[in-house]
């Protein structure tokens, strides 16, 4: 105990990733925060954003984009229950842009309240991915 954090990233469909890490950065409700070994227990809801896994030498291992969820951290175990997850390198910008356009079209057509909420959520999710990618590219350009 004390040197590593066991991280488990779970989506409703499967266990997405299970890894022992030196540090993990999580997009929390109020802002991104790092989880290091021996952190105080916390239960936190997540924003859409990137979960970054670092190994013991603080090198980036994985970067995963999650769509909201909840994280439960205690006893050097970090369980991230995300609604949706994909690796950053797998994000297909064009596909997301298409989906976003489709969703924007759908929302104009539908009248049903519940469906609207769902589509709005999706739009927010796609938007956040695109914003993230743009930011990423700006950083690269700099």
């Amino acid at each position, binding site marked *: 105990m004390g040197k590593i954090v066991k991280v*488990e990233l*779970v*989506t409703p469909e499967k266990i997405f990733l299970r890894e022992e890490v030196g540090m993990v950065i999580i997009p929390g409700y109020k802002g991104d925060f790092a989880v290091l070994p021996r952190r105080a227990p*916390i*239960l936190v*809801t997540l924003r859409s954003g990137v979960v970054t896994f670092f190994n013991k030498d603080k090198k980036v291992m994985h970067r995963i984009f999650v769509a909201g969820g*909840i994280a439960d951290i*205690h006893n050097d175990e970090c369980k991230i229950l995300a609604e949706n997850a994909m690796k950053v390198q797998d994000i297909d910008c064009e596909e997301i842009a298409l989906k976003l356009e489709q969703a924007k079209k759908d929302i104009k057509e539908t009248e049903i309240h*519940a469906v609207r909420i769902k589509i709005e959520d999706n739009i927010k999710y796609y938007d956040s991915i695109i914003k993230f990618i743009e930011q990423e590219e700006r950083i690269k350009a700099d």
Partner: protein
Amino acid sequence: MPSLKDLRVRITSVKSTQKITSAMKMVAASKLKRSQDAVVAAKPYAKDLETIIVNLANRIEARRNAEEADETRLEAAVSNLTDNVKNLANNVKKRYYVKELNTAKSQELPSLFDGTGKENAHLLIVLTSDRGLCGGFNSSVARAVRNNIRQLEKEEKTVKILCIGRKGRDALKREFGKYIINTLEGVARKGASFVESDEITLKIIEMFENSEFDVCSLVYNKFISAMKQEVTFEQVIPFKLSMHEEISDEEIKHKLHVFGPGAVYEYEPSEQEILEKILPRNLAVKIFNSILESQASEHGSRMTSMDSATRNASEMIDKLSIKYNRTRQAFITKELIEIISGAEAV
């Protein structure tokens, strides 16, 4: 006695039926493997979420009880005082405790967890398949639902049915057509996706918010093995711990210890808000899991029933072939006798 041609036709027809059933068995077997894997893969999320909810609820409950205990202790203390001091104390109490009391009230558990306090209207979500030829899969669910509804009718409760899968509606509509509010077809045709369950959940929550029902249960076939499925009633609103067999007592104790009043657990945002946020998700997860279970059961049930159908067909082919051969021989003998007796007559 059927003619030779009739027998030949029957044998070919049984043979082609056998081909179909054995092909269906193969297809079901491969789909079963896939959906079984999906069931297993979906378990961790559901289990973790449920543990979190239980602990959050315990935590809120414990705090509420503690606050109530404080309140009664205060009352008792006040009642022991003399009148003058009592008035003073009451004033102090009013001034300083009203605010706290208000926050205590806002700490109530969300209605998705606690229910509406009534049990008058029941919503049954009935999960069946869209297609037949899967043995007793659909009829066992329908039977269980029928019994359940009769029971509820006796207790004079209102019943609403939401069918997921065409066969369930077909089986129930004659007797309980008036209760069926909606039928969803083609759910999980290309494998269950969480998005789909999410949409169903939204509809259900909307109904709940409009107080169209008080209690909601899922009825589905739980997958035990390819040979065995079990019709399961699972209450989802108000929240009930369903996976208790799977979350061991040890685990809960361990968790409770960690979550217990002594431990410094941080919450972001407050416990209440987290609980409100994850309860609808838990509902979606439950629906998703039951769709997966139901699918695995469907394939398992179809596989076994198609297997026995194939076996029955081959038995039938054997019987028919024997009959065919005997008839053929009888004809030959008959013809021989005719020839011989004809020759003798000459």
